[in-house]
């Protein structure tokens, strides 16, 4: 599984433990880097876009927090927003259990996906022994 995730092509946006946020930047600055460098928007406009995405995910309160000051769930949301703003056709969440150890994560990811209203597909790669967690979340629905 790890090799398969590592070999993903450039059209995939990954959310993974091994792709951390820039520690000395706030959540909003981490996200704003993408439109700043790829979209060539101004710093102010990039910040507005990043803030809007955090609001869309229901976590605008983490905008000014830096990586060490965030809870695992907040960190995950910041990473997810960074991946979403890349606007790649596929989004892969790589072993969410390693990042989201403070929340029941299948439910958490499902809620975020509902809020994000994102085009494209979200794929979750996880260990087979965690399948039961996803089953439980599905049964609740």
């Amino acid at each position, binding site marked *: 599984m790890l090799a398969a995730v590592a070999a993903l092509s450039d059209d995939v946006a990954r959310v993974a433990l091994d*792709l*951390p946020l*820039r520690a000395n930047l706030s959540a909003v600055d981490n996200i704003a880097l993408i439109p700043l460098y790829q979209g060539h928007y101004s710093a102010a406009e990039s910040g507005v876009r990043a803030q809007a995405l955090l609001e869309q995910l229901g976590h605008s309160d983490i905008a000014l927090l830096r990586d060490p000051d965030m809870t695992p769930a907040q960190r995950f949301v910041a990473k997810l927003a960074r991946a979403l703003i890349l606007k790649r056709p596929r989004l892969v969440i790589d072993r969410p259990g390693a990042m989201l150890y403070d929340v029941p994560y299948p439910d958490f990811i499902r809620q975020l996906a509902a809020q994000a209203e994102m085009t494209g597909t979200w794929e979750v790669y996880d260990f087979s022994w965690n399948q039961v967690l996803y089953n439980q979340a599905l049964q609740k629905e």
Partner: protein
Amino acid sequence: MNFLATSIESLGAKIAGWFTVGYGMFAFLAQAMLLLLERTTWNRATFDVVIKQVYFTAVQILHVFLGYALVISWLIISIILSTARDFGLTEFASEMTIRVLVLELLPFLTALFIALRSGSAINTEVALMQVNNELDALAHCKVPPMQFEFMPRLIGGVISVITLAGLAGLLALLMGYLAIYGLNAAGFEPFTQTIAKIFDFRIVAGLIVKCALFGLAVTLIPVTAGIETPKKLFMVPVSVLRGMMRVFFAIVAIEVVSLALKYI
């Protein structure tokens, strides 16, 4: 015999290591220089980071640095003046002050100051970025680390050392004048003549080149040392130690070469 072979092997490995490090640094510098020439590099994002770097490296510490330059200049000028008076060489005091302080000591101390304050911070930050995979994450997001993280630091270092050394030099000239002539305007003409005599084009160009090299040394070496760090947290202090030793030797080497070119 075995001992001799081991010693030769170890020496060879060390020399090969030095060459590898040197090659890595120059290759990195060449890459940064080539990027500087590309139009796409000069986007708003990179420009903003350069401004931030200059602010953190030079503006933020300006008051502390000027205070430090003031004290050092005052002490050195007092020593030069008192020695010149003892030997009856007062007429050479202003020239000696300018040559010792403005051309040599202040740029050297400025480079050391920036190296200790910003160079060590850059080395640590880049090493941590390397260890924590932050550089890989930036690459995944197609945010070029060279343009976003490294080049602004190099440019910021060069601009900061040149401007801080220039400001310290101006302060030292003012202090020198006050120490030699006091608040009397009568000394203005001979003093400015001495300045004009010393600061010919070759000396000014040499001073700027020397400060630019100092600026590169205090940023380029820490950045490359940080990138070289193996992905193990306990290697970060080792990386900073190595980087700062290299910075020290580079600063001393630049100063020695500059003195040799000027006076030998």
